């Protein structure tokens, strides 16, 4: 409870100006607060460069000027908030201006969480536009919009109710919403969409600490939750079966179902590539998903290693073990473009929070995703296994990180010992 209160204040209600020596009375309560724990949320002030409050003796410049008392830097204020007045200065040129203090570096990138998430949204747009204008009609737009709005709404509501810092603006919830919609059939009822949103944002993301702390990909977890309603999740309408807002509820066989049965789907390879086939709302067009992935790579939002190791593993395993007596080439190409593989490899497995951070950790993670995908597709009772494969590897992400960092340390120690 106490912690939460601190969280909310996030430093924002603390006095901004460096207390001068005379104002000791006003300063005391703050000093008492600063002795308390380190884990206080470092949200910082808008436009305030001083880092998070830390115990007094840990501050980087606890050393106050001992001799030259001119600029008062009180010993009790290890981290100067906003402005330190320069009370007396000999020189001309208006050297009496407030200066801020902070640890180096004094320059940082312009990227923020929001710009990264915006890039992901932009990368999803081609697939969404074609889906809405051509494959599944305006209902695809509506489902995506409802889902994104639902996620942002639940996030905002949760932050409001729990008095956390409002994070709905960082667009990560919107990305979750669109990604969740992409994995659903276009004819999905709206209550199911909102239910998935609720599970994804509130249960999977916020209850575990919000952005950066969830251990499962919220969109995939929301989708997995919706499998409680199999009738909803398997009614894939055929492409171009829409008429205005309504869509043919008749479920068409997806290419993945055919693959699961060990035969090649009726759609040609070109149709698979362009997306003229039945499937979930955003997953049908390989070309448009690749276009979005390319955008993310160029913008350096994601790195190639997870998608490459993921798709590479699937390709190798499909090539080695084609099912139903089909040729290796056909089977591999259909496997790569079938189901939600490209969507998962480019947009879901590369989710920052639930993937490892080290280079080799990411490669292992991608290989694991690929191997599990092929395993689940071949031996699972449900045609598509990509989502569950990624979820399972999400659970291992921290473990992979720990292991790869431990290996890195061991390697470094060995190198040092040799030198």
């Amino acid at each position: 409870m106490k912690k939460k209160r601190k969280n909310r204040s996030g430093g924002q209600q603390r006095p901004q100006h460096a207390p001068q020596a005379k104002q000791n009375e006003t300063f005391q309560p703050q000093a008492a607060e600063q002795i308390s724990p380190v884990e206080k949320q470092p949200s910082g002030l808008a436009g305030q460069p001083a880092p998070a409050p830390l115990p007094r003796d840990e501050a980087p410049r606890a050393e106050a000027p001992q001799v030259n008392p001119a600029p008062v830097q009180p010993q009790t204020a290890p981290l100067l908030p906003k402005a330190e007045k320069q009370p007396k200065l000999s020189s001309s040129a208006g050297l009496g201006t407030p200066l801020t203090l902070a640890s180096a570096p004094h320059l940082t990138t312009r990227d923020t969480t929001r710009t990264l998430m915006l890039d992901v949204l932009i990368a999803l747009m081609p697939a969404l536009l074609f889906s809405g204008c051509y494959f599944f009609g305006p209902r695809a737009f509506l489902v995506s919009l409802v889902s994104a709005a639902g996620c942002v709404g639940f996030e905002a509501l949760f932050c409001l109710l729990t008095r956390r810092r409002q994070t709905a603006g960082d667009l990560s919830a919107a990305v979750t919403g669109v990604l969740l919609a992409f994995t659903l059939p276009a004819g999905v009822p709206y209550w199911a969409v909102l239910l998935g949103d609720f599970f994804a944002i509130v249960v999977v993301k916020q209850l575990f600490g919000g952005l950066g702390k969830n251990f499962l990909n919220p969109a995939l977890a929301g989708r997995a939750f919706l499998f409680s309603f199999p009738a909803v999740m398997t009614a894939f309408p055929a492409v171009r079966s829409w008429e205005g807002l309504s869509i043919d509820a008749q479920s068409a066989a997806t290419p993945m179902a055919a693959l699961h049965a060990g035969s090649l789907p009726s759609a040609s390879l070109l149709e698979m590539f362009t997306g003229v086939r039945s499937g979930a709302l955003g997953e049908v067009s390989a070309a448009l998903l690749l276009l979005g992935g390319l955008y993310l790579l160029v913008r350096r939002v994601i790195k190639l290693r997870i998608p490459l190791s993921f798709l590479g593993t699937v390709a190798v395993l499909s090539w080695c073990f084609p099912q139903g007596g089909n040729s290796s080439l056909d089977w591999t190409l259909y496997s790569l473009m079938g189901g939600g593989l490209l969507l998962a490899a480019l947009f879901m497995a590369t989710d920052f929070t639930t993937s490892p951070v080290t280079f080799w950790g990411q490669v292992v993670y991608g290989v694991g995703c690929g191997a599990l995908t092929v395993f689940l597709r071949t031996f699972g009772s449900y045609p598509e296994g990509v989502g569950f494969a990624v979820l399972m590897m999400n659970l291992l992400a921290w473990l992979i990180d720990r292991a790869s960092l431990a290996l890195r340390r061991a390697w470094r120690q060995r190198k040092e010992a040799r030198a």
Partner: protein
Amino acid sequence: MFSIFSGGIRPAQRKKATGQLPFRPMEQPPAQVVLPLAGAGTASAVPLVVPGDRVRAGQKLADAVPGQAAVHASVSGTVAAVEPRQQIRGGAALSAVIDSDGTNTPVASPAWRRVDKDASPASLRPGELADIAAQAGLTAMDGTGRPLSQLLRDAMGKADALLIDGTESEPYVTSRRRLMADRPEAVLGGVRLLMQALSLPRATLALEGSQYDAVAALRSYLPLRGGDIELRLLRSRYPQPLTFHQEGRALFTVCSAAALWDAVYRGQALTHRIITVAGSAVARPANLLVPIGTPVSDLIREAGGWKEEPVRLVAGGPMTGKAQFDLTAPVTGETRALLALSAADLYPSIRPESPCLRCGRCVEVCPAGLAPLFLHLYVRSGQWEALEREQISACTECGACAYVCPAHLRLVHSIRVGKRRLSGAAGRREADHEEEA
């Protein structure tokens, strides 16, 4: 913005304002200089002067003590006080305060044998060069402030390669570039002296392709190929991997090389250095030849005063430099630059922190192969033992992680907090003084 595999970043250079300006002496020399006689906290050197003494430029003020080079007066005048004064690296240090008489009368002759200008480096014994470096109070001029003589003696006979570092990959800083471009003969002569001091037949001078005028100036003094000094051009990248410590290789800066040349052939102690004064808050950014000990405020005045409101004043490069709050603090031989940064310069770095995304960019760019996001997590949650396991001491505080963090986490700050916690109360004071501008 940052390279893919081997760590490091490529920040925007922001060197246009000063890159092509030749360095110049100050138009308005400082009326008073403050020369720290010892690194605060280290064994204090015994001052050789008392208040009221008249001193000449280049006169010794304090002898060398282990880890600290000798200190010389950078102007002539009267000693006003010997007392602790605020330093730019933080904390106060015993300093000699000298009121300048404006004449800059040099000492009659230096304490060491002055070498004729035409004499070749081979006429000097290696040990003699180290002695001159000690007498002249030369330092590494790489930010650490270690005495050059000590480094030379440590490397003698052990180093089999010599690398001279002319790179400056931090944004804004152009002092080395101007030194190389405007005094190439001093730099190359100094490199040859260093080769002689270490008895090595050749040396490599590393510099960045973006320092093109420095490259052209140095090239004009060197044969196209087969010379004793090889120029190695690098792409701008921060931090420069070539300049990392390597076993069996001696590493010196171009500033030290030029200072050694000045000491040997001109009999000058280390009393001046080139400092880049830049940032959009100063009216006339410049590369200034500054007497060591000049207060920061005099440099600002020399650069035309404030053009807009300075939000932060940084002594050193923007990636590792220290923010200043006291404009009376004097610059030292280690100060590469003085940056008056406006809100626009700083803008993204003063954004509030947001939660860590675990995007892994910090891991990507860390030249030490650490995972700063975990160090940050452990520090903020007080898991001090985990820090040791993660080898936090391998961090060089280059700042690349904090630069790329999209959540704008103060990663370097957290790491410093963790390091200091681990080093404990005993190590705390040393840690204070290791970092200089």
